């Protein structure tokens, strides 16, 4: 199965403006009609990966985060911690059944470990 990058996520202090910009620029469809009110990006192509937009806290920089698929989120978190990563959001079940955790790699870069429902 491997551990593919499943999704990108833009963390933006101005999520609506970000959504507007990219949808106008690339014709992406952005839909927030889901229990988290999460702005899901449909790039309109089967190539590449799909994404999403999440609001950034005021003190945070805007950045892009990658979601890597794993079979066991808890085990991957432990493995990552053993390699020097820092856990930010513990394994969390989302309303639609996905499970994810957010970590900082040893260089301080944020990434998500994700298991699809």
């Amino acid at each position: 199965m491997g551990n593919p990058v499943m999704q990108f996520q833009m963390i933006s202090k101005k999520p609506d403006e970000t959504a507007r910009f990219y949808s106008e620029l690339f014709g992406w469809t952005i839909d927030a009609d889901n229990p988290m009110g999460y702005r899901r990006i449909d790039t309109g192509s089967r190539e590449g990966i799909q994404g999403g937009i999440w609001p950034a806290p005021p003190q945070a920089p805007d950045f892009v985060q990658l979601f890597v698929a794993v079979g066991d989120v808890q085990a991957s978190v432990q493995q990552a911690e053993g390699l020097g990563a820092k856990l930010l959001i513990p394994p969390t079940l989302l309303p639609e059944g996905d499970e994810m955790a957010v970590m900082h790699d040893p260089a301080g870069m944020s990434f998500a470990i994700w298991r699809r429902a």
Partner: protein
Amino acid sequence: MIFANPGSTVGYIPISRGASQCPALRSKSIAVAVRRGYDYIRMQGQQFRTRLQEELDTRSENNPRYSLRAFAAFLGTDHSTLSQILRGKRRAPAAQIRQWSKKLGLDSEEAAAYIAAEYVPDTATTERENQLRHWTAEAMAIVTEPAHWEIVRLSRTPHFQTDCRWIAQEIGVTVDQVNLAFNRLLRLRLMETGAEGAWIDLTNPPALTEKEFRRAALARVREKAAESRTKKRRIT
């Protein structure tokens, strides 16, 4: 989907910060030149003393009898001061960097970059400042944004729905505000999710008031900040 990091601000310090603290860089042309050409010096953490040491090493290689005293005399300072600067025991003042740069044949733009580098905090200081900013922001958000408490309060009610749109409507804030607050509650381990995505309030006691919640949440911020410092020490 979802969940950003907690607002790490780790990274690049804008040149303007160093420049604003540094009288030598108030000249617009020099500041522009620094941004344009010599930013790498600052980004690599290279200091003027490294440049001095390189120069001394080169001269010593070319002339094995060349001494620290000779180099100090060339620069127009005493060998004790120069020795302390080379060993990092004291910082070279801006005026001296400018004067010595001329003697070393560096142009004014490069001198300005070295002066700026002296005013940029080192990596450890920057990291400490970032951590302080981050945890202060977390604490302020808990104090000033009622959405945190409202989510916890609602989660204890029988009609609670794990739908951010519903929560936003119930408490009169935007969905983004709900998500940011929920994200923070997860980070601070004040909430977690359970089977089928249920939101579980981890605060105590069960009959929590808003004031008690804030107190517990702020205590958790302090714990997490302390934990983060301990982990950092363990890694480094």
